[in-house]
């Protein structure tokens, strides 16, 4: 058959619904779209879990050893590629401000790097206070805070919600100090997924050597409510829908086989009418492409709408690509299934099919 004749037959079969096109497009869209959305949602959930882990400071590791933390060693951890911030801290008792003489405020001396751990913007030297405390006292960034030793400009206000993280900073004043030779704690925000031994080794390296064999060293997290560690890549790779592509491929293949099976009488009749097998396969392939394009558009559009109104809307583009990939496997399976079954159609089946009709 000529190419135009094949296109004509395929289009008429598709447009008239003779090939069951409406049902095929609908089922392909649902199977491909649902599996795609499920996989995208699973990835979105994993991303959210990672985001929650990071935003709750669960990735901030701590070593505590009184008077043994080197501020320079601790601050320099943030120069590492897998560490996004680090700094040292020590408890300096409580402060009473003239503005609230009845209020005892926990105060900590911190190294220069520490402020960057809690404050992502603004001047990271001087004095910073937690948002809870600033709210209570009515201070904002840049205000002059009266202290017993004179007025000090408030460099910044940091959020420290009560979400399971170290509660000491929830209501605290941090004062940057460069003159402290040794701190009590080193905090470092380290990319998760490396394992506890790695964090312990990294943080222990910030401790000053001591002859006191009995000095106490504690290693831990700022917030351990989300687990000790988390591997972002493993969360995505081990998601429950990681084989969605395979399910989509097999599902698509089954749909393809069924789509050809339900019109096997008509296909064997076409062979009987003189069509070569190559003509038959070419016609089925072009019909498949019409179905693939239609189903792809419906499934992608539906997935975009579903994901746009999901909790993962802020990463719509990335998740939509994931969804489309799964849908693509489904459509590929459909083409393979339909062509494979069409290839088994024989003219001689016509008699048996007709008799069993």
């Amino acid at each position, binding site marked *: *058959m*000529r190419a*135009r*004749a094949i296109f*004509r*037959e395929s289009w*008429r*079969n598709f447009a*008239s*619904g*003779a090939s069951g096109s409406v049902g095929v497009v609908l089922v392909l869209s649902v199977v491909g779209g649902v599996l795609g959305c499920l996989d995208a949602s699973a990835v979105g959930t994993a991303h959210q879990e990672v985001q929650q882990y990071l935003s709750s400071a669960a990735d901030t590791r701590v070593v505590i050893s009184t008077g043994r933390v080197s501020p320079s060693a601790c601050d320099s951890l943030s120069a590492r590629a897998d560490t996004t911030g680090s700094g040292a801290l020590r408890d300096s008792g409580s402060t009473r401000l003239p503005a609230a003489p009845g209020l005892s405020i926990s105060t900590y001396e911190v190294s220069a790097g520490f402020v960057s751990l809690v404050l992502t913007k603004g001047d990271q030297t001087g004095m910073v206070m937690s948002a809870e405390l600033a709210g209570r006292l009515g201070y904002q960034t840049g205000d002059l805070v009266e202290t017993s030793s004179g007025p000090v400009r408030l460099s910044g206000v940091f959020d420290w919600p009560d979400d399971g993280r170290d509660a000491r900073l929830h209501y605290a004043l941090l004062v940057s100090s460069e003159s402290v030779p040794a701190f009590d704690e080193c905090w470092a925000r380290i990319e998760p997924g490396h394992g506890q031994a790695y964090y312990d080794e990294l943080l222990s390296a910030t401790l000053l050597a001591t002859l006191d064999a009995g000095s106490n060293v504690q290693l831990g997290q700022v917030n351990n409510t989300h687990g000790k560690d988390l591997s972002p890549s493993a969360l995505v790779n081990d998601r429950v829908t990681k084989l969605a592509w395979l399910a989509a491929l097999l599902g698509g293949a089954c749909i393809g086989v069924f789509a050809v099976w339900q*019109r096997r*009488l*008509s296909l064997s*009749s*076409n062979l*009987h*009418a*003189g*069509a*070569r097998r190559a*003509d038959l396969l070419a016609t089925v392939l072009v019909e498949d492409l019409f179905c693939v394009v239609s189903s792809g558009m419906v499934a992608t559009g539906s997935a975009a709408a579903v994901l746009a109104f999901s909790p993962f809307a802020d990463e719509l583009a990335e998740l939509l690509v994931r969804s489309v990939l799964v849908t693509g496997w489904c459509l590929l399976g459909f083409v393979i299934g339909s062509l494979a079954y069409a290839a088994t159609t024989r003219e*001689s089946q*016509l*008699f048996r099919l*007709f008799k069993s*009709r």
Partner: protein
Amino acid sequence: MHGGLDGSSDGPAIVGSGLGHSFGQQWLFRNLSFRLVAGEAVAVCGPSGCGKTTLLSILARWLAPSEGELARYGVARVSWVFQNPHGVARRSAVDHVVYPLLARGLSVEEAERGASDLMEQFSIGKVADHPFSALSGGEAQRLMLARAVAASPDVLLVDEPTAQLDRSSARTVNQTMGKIAGSGSIVVVATHDQDTMTACDRIIDLQAER
């Protein structure tokens, strides 16, 4: 036009020698010998279950005979028209006839023109654009004959073409089969309709071959 016993002729020929077919111990027919030549319309008759359709299957080589030999000469294409017309419900009537012409390599325009001509010849031109599902039994049967003819068969096997038709439609179908044979094909019709037998050149009575 008529060939020799070896099958040599100007057109296709089929020679059956001592053909028989059985299902288990039950013989449908035995010792059946015949020679079919181009331009001939042959009726295969007998009561239901005597093996008419089975004989057509053997002629189409979709079934091997239990005994005897079948030789086909110059037969490249066999078309079969079933008792119950089978078409694609949603496709137009004319599309059913266009397809075999496209399969023969004609252009879309040539095939559409040829199909229209055939539809007129078979007196179904008026329903050319109707979907197959909207055709009457007689129209559908004539459409299937037109489709079979469009494939340019050397042998046309027709199974009970008038079984479900009214007298007028049956007469048209019988005339149509005569025309097809006249164009140089071998037409073999399984039937127990007396009018169809009368319209054919020759009769093979399977009842007599049991």
